[in-house]
């Protein structure tokens, strides 16, 4: 086999592309009030939660699907989807990992997240979400000792209703926009984190999202609250089986940082991107928003987006508290027929607020990449600053890269800086690396990792190495 053929072989080899044959409980197909009642009922939710959902659904009925984005996609028939799917063995929730369906344990092991072993590795606590339910959360007891709550959203609704009631929808209102509103009506599971006042979370918290069932949308809902003076670092990872159909993942993630609190949120997104002809893959339409509610609070988003057929998301910060800081570090890679329209929004409301945006976009194959970002400094946000740097790297001559910054500065005492570059990996650079003994793939991986370095450095150590490899793998076969 010559190298080119090998490259193509490797491309087909999305190693998370398997599916688990597992009996599941599903909601009836389609989207209506009964389905929403079904979801709420199966989760044994209190009345107020059902009301929250139904209100959102009322609103959803009058909303129109947006279409201002660059990547276009065939019309989604929202009545032709399942909105809830969960392994049958989860109907009566197992009390410990030992009671968990071996098939589920096996699945996570294959994904490189052996839950049983993970439970023994110090430093990382994992919440594992399989289709519509959280199947296991590790290290719960240890965290509880410090007053930290880390559990599935469903459990939080049962056990911590006061916190959920207070904060759910406080950053992304149910009326926000089409996909966010849809999520509010039908969301199934996700993670809930509460860090009490003055506590520095002693380990990385992470959630691993897995889509398994076909024809099913995943509507993740995550809520993280960092109380005064607390700190937490949270990471999410995602994969899905290889299928010819496109599957929808419409998540809502809300972060709230009170006075002097800091939340670091990292994503390594590796949803199935579709095959080399652009068939199949996940539609990753996600709303992520953080509210720096208190003074001196800080929210930092880091994302490594390598998967999905279409990635459409703008993790944002609302800098409401004076002296608060928002950061966005992003690596987005598109190859083959993948498309991405991603960036951030930094809304400066408080005085002396700072934001920083570092975006690295890499496009290869026939893919299309868009950075879209808003920096909005309100008239009351005196002495605020933003720095934005958007770099694009092109590989080959059939891909595209676009940058659209929206800049609004309504305060004369504040300033915004924007820098942008576009470059290409040159044949000369590759030749230089080859001459030093590196193969084409190794050379690309080295150059691209160099390009992304500022962002990779932001990731927690344990994940930075993985992310680095992922960056190399996603571009395999893109030159040659």
């Amino acid at each position, binding site marked *: 086999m010559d190298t080119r053929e090998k490259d193509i072989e490797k491309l087909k080899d999305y190693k998370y592309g398997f599916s688990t044959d597992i009996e599941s409980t599903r909601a009836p197909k389609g989207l209506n009030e009964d389905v929403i009642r079904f979801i709420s009922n199966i989760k044994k939710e209190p009345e107020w939660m059902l009301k929250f959902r139904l209100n959102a659904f009322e609103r959803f009925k009058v909303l129109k699907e947006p279409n201002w984005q660059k990547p276009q996609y065939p019309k989604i028939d929202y009545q032709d989807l399942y909105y809830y799917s969960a392994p049958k063995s989860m109907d009566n929730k197992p009390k410990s990992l030992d009671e968990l369906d071996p098939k589920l344990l096996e699945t996570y092991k294959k994904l490189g997240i052996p839950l049983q072993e993970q439970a023994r590795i110090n430093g990382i606590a994992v919440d594992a979400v399989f289709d519509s339910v959280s199947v296991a959360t590790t290290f719960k007891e240890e965290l509880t000792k410090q007053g930290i709550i880390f559990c599935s959203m469903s459990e939080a609704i049962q056990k911590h209703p006061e916190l959920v009631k207070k904060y759910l929808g406080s950053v992304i209102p149910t009326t926000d926009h089409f996909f966010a509103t849809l999520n509010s009506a039908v969301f199934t599971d996700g993670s809930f984190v509460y860090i009490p006042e003055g506590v520095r979370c002693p380990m990385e918290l992470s959630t691993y999202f897995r889509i398994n069932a076909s024809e099913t949308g995943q509507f993740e809902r995550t809520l993280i609250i960092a109380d005064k003076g607390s700190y937490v670092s949270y990471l999410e990872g995602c994969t899905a089986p290889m299928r010819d159909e496109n599957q929808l993942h419409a998540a809502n993630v809300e972060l709230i940082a009170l006075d002097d609190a800091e939340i670091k949120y990292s994503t390594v997104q590796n949803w199935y991107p579709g095959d080399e002809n652009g068939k199949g893959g996940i539609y990753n339409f996600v709303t992520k928003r953080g509210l720096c509610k208190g003074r001196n609070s800080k929210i930092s988003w880091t994302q490594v987006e390598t998967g999905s057929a279409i990635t459409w998301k703008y993790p944002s910060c609302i800098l409401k508290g004076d002296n608060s800081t928002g950061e966005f570090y992003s690596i987005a890679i598109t190859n083959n027929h993948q498309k991405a329209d991603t960036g951030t929004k930094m809304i400066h409301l408080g005085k002396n607020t700072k934001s920083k945006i570092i975006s690295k976009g890499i496009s290869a194959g026939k893919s299309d990449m868009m950075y879209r970002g808003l920096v909005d400094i309100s008239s009351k946000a005196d002495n605020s600053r933003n720095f934005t740097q958007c770099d694009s790297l092109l590989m080959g001559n059939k891909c595209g890269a676009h940058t659209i910054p929206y800049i609004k500065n309504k305060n004369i005492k504040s300033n915004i800086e924007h820098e942008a570059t576009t470059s290409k990996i040159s044949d000369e650079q590759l030749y230089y690396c080859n*001459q030093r003994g590196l193969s*084409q793939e190794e050379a690309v991986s080295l150059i691209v990792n*160099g390009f992304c370095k500022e962002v990779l450095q932001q990731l927690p150590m344990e994940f930075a190495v993985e992310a680095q490899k992922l960056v190399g793998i996603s571009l395999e076969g893109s030159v040659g």
Partner: protein
Amino acid sequence: MLSIQNLKAKIDNKEILKGLNLKINAGEVHAIMGPNGSGKSTLSNILSGKKGYEIEGVVDFNNENLLNLETEERAHKGIFLAFQYPLEIPGVNTNTFLKTSLNAIKKARGEKELDALEFLKLIKEKSKELKFDEKILSRQLNVGFSGGEKKKNEILQMSILNPKLSILDETDSGLDIDALRIVSEGVNSLRTKDNSFLIITHYQRLLDYIKPDFVHVLKNGQIIKSGGPELAMDLEKKGYEDFE
């Protein structure tokens, strides 16, 4: 070690090498001189495996047809090119690049790769030998390097990778006297009975520091004259015009 027979090369339908013959034995230093456009850089590109040429002829390197090997495979077999214009790779620090390169070659040869500590020890040693400022090693590869620093960095890479055949493509151009001396000392320290060098240069000056065993005059795609070091002196005096 290296035997080139009747090498012809075209790029964009333009014939650049027109039947070149050259033989380099282990331990020898050969210098190639010639006017602009005579094919000097093309020769070094073809030996090191740059793509884009139409090639005819035979290039035998230690009993293997070099022309059948990929660029990186040639590096694994011990061919090194010190670039005339070393490339910048933003974000990749010089240390990382060198370590990745050394380990890729070691891996291909089935040798044990160096861990971070072993590598650090090696590079400290070599930088000291070459009077190379270690600070440069933590900077991004060739980014913002002066001309002299870039060339010295090439020599440092050469000494770390310890190649069998080193090709220096106009390494002396753009160097001041001090840098030239350091670069030359670097090359001289690598001269052994097993390692060979092919030095491409415009000027006799470099050959004051690196004594070649053979000097060849390349003109119009062919080697038109070969001799000892005295040939370089002759050239410097008379210019290329007299050699037809």
